[in-house]
């Protein structure tokens, strides 16, 4: 890699005016030629080691600057961490979980390299493949499916992760020679009380989280990655999200979930790197040598949470607010103040009952009820049409990034599933956990390379 090709990092958001280029010539002009990328991706251990070194060098000095939510430009693909975690949450989601169908380690690595190449391009608003959507042979199907031509990069981010089943099958088969590298906390999430999980919406060997401000751009990304994967991996399930339910930057206002309440007010934000180090990024740790490759990465918890929309809508405002623990109007805790006022769980109201009810969602999900653990939420409202009984098949596709699900998610969810009075209106219908490897430091690396060294 030449010095003048030092790639931009996640710290920066590129020119907002960047438009998806329809021709390969503009690919060249941005220094992202397919050949160059493939050349880099195909090299051996030396380049990989260099990439790891670059990652290490960046760890600890990484800072993140939030982009304006209205920014429709390109988010850099390269950095110490994958984009799409602390990136200010985009408006739309297309999430896909894949089953790996090959038994070949080389083919799996090859897929990750190809995905890296395609993701690097698409996130910059460029079409995939050598010839893109319209510049190849008229006798061949286009490399890129083309529906994103003319659209901006739309702040597309592509974030990939590895499920527990990639490392080892349920019967203990080491599929790709990486069973001994499974991080200790990368095991299937337990069944929580009242879970009604569909196997067709749960699990997966790999995941792709594609987020963008334009839904067509997000769908284009997953579609083209799935196409690249044919023969190596196949989509197990996927989920569209039409509206973000959390803010990952203080520059964003807190959006509302389908219950009509502000959601994720207390979310971890990009502007507080110390808290991100404490709660989101997997540290380099001697305690879990198997998972050393995951340092600088994170865990992605995905839960498809169906909401009982119709009965919720028949619930009185007072009851709704007591279930949530916040006011519906502006999201202030029931103990008073405004949205970002810290909840006062000791505050007592009439009949000596707490102002924030004992079984409220706010109280039970709060760090003070969870050993101080915090999560970075990145969920999306979804609706998959109706359920055949005239009811909306809708809810929250919950995504959280945590440094360790064993300390930062499982205890909290167990408590919520058992005691949260809001559960009467919720049903968890899908579940998955993925280890999200660190970012790709430069075009010479590929997503997940630290796992395969």
């Amino acid at each position, binding site marked *: 890699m030449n010095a003048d090709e030092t790639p931009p990092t996640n710290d920066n958001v590129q020119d907002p005016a960047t438009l998806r280029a329809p021709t390969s010539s503009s690919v060249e002009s941005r220094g992202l030629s397919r050949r160059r990328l493939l050349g880099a991706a195909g090299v051996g251990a030396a380049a990989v080691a260099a990439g790891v070194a670059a990652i290490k060098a960046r760890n600890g000095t990484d800072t993140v600057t939030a982009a304006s939510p209205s920014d429709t430009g390109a988010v850099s693909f390269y950095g110490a961490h994958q984009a799409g975690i602390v990136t200010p949450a985009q408006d739309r989601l297309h999430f896909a979980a894949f089953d790996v169908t090959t038994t070949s380690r080389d083919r799996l690595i090859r897929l990750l390299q190809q995905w890296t190449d395609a993701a690097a391009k698409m996130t910059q608003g460029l079409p995939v493949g050598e010839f893109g959507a319209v510049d190849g042979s008229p006798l061949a199907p286009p490399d890129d499916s083309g529906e994103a031509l003319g659209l901006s990069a739309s702040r597309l981010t592509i974030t990939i992760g590895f499920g527990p089943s990639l490392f080892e099958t349920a019967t203990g088969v080491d599929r790709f020679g990486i069973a001994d590298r499974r991080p200790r906390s990368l095991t299937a999430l337990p069944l929580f009380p009242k879970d009604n999980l569909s196997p067709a919406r749960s699990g997966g060997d790999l995941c792709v989280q594609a987020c963008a401000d334009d839904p067509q751009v997000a769908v284009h990304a997953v579609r083209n990655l799935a196409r690249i994967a044919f023969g190596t991996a196949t989509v197990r399930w996927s989920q569209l999200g039409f509206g973000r339910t959390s803010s990952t930057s203080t520059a964003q206002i807190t959006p509302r979930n389908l219950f009509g309440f502000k959601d994720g007010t207390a979310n971890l934000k990009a502007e507080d790197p110390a808290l991100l180090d404490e709660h989101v990024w997997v540290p380099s740790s001697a305690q879990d040598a198997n998972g050393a490759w995951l340092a600088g990465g994170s865990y992605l918890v995905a839960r498809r949470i169906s909401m009982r929309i119709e009965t919720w809508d028949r619930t009185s405002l007072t009851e709704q607010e007591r279930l949530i623990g916040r006011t519906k109007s502006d999201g202030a805790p029931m103990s008073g103040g405004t949205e970002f006022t810290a909840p006062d769980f000791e*505050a007592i109201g009439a009949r000596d009952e707490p102002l924030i009810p004992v079984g409220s969602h706010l109280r039970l999900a709060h760090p003070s009820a969870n050993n101080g653990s915090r999560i970075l939420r990145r969920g999306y409202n979804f609706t998959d049409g109706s359920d055949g009984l005239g009811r909306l098949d809708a809810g929250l596709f919950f995504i959280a990034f945590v440094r360790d699900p064993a300390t930062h998610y499982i205890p909290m969810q167990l408590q919520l599933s058992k005691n949260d009075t809001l559960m009467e209106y919720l049903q968890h219908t899908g579940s998955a956990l993925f280890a999200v490897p660190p970012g790709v430091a430069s075009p010479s690396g590929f997503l997940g390379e630290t796992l395969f060294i």
Partner: protein
Amino acid sequence: MIALPRLRRGVVILTIIGVGSLLASCTDKADSGATKGGNEPAKLTVTATDDACTVSSADAPSGTLTFAVTNKGSKVNEFYLFAEDGVRVVGEVENIGPGLTRNLVVRIKPGTYVAACKPGMTGDGIRSDFTVTDSGEAVAAPAIETLLSEATEQYTAFVRTEADELLEKTEAFAGLYREGKDDEARASYAPTRIHWERIEPVAESFGDVDPKLDLREADLEAGQDWTGWHRIEKDLWPPANDASYVPLTTAQRAALADQLVADTKDLRGRVSVVTLSPDQLSNGAKELLDEVATGKVTGEEEVWSGTDLWDFQANVDGAKMAFEVLEPVLREKDPALLTELDERFDDVQKLLDAQKKGEGFVNYRELSPEQVKAMADAVNALGEPLSRLTAAVVL
């Protein structure tokens, strides 16, 4: 099903919306008169601090009044509207945390009242006179309070009778199950449970009883002890496709049967001393329809026995009873809602009647998707207006 102290929460709803408005007479349609045009309810603001209570106007026209109370102090506040004697509560809104705004909505007749904020929720509060002028609406004075208390008495008696029958039949059922008379136990399973399903919201208000008696397998937590109706249901209708299912031993059966009776006795004892408020009737009716919508229409309640339609009917019966005892109140306050609910209850009942078989109903699994859809639609059509019952009768 899910254990929640719902009725207790209901009490809070009532007091926040305004208990005392029951005491105020009502008019057919609120006319805001002087402060606002048309039929918009008059809206006043109240600014409460730790040492002041400022109402935006000292008078308002009779009808529906909304007080938007903003707490600009540091203490938790309350706002009251008292009758002229300064003692009788006409309406109140409590738990107004610092910085929050809460609404008190009352329907009120002409007269002199006292408005008061109570910073810190103690003392007599900071008081001022408040006058309600005659908006010109004909002000009837139906004895709503009396009607409500009659309704509550009737419903309480209904709940107690059901609890008595539940216990009696549960003892018989438990005996059959304990003795291994499975055919007879299966036959009495659903006819016994209907007495539970009719009063489910009251039973659920005793948070700890419900999970012991009515927890479904899907709701269990890892390692949690599974007791109650559905544990026995699974043993009486063992899963056909699951060769790994181990039937319970005689000793296990006896323990479950004893526990079922003991827990039901506990429930009956609590029901015999329960006091209900009018909003608990109407909220309970809404919750019963929620139960139908989320558990029974979908066949999730009785996965082994398929007796969901019995429960469905029992939930509707319980909701209908609440509606019927409140009918005299509703006739005064919202006759249009009364008519609508009458029709919707009939629609649901017609669909249930079509599935009657012998003393009960066909197995849920015999229903076609179209029949299930029609039931879901009818339940939604009833549930929506039923959710307006509380505000209609207690406001």
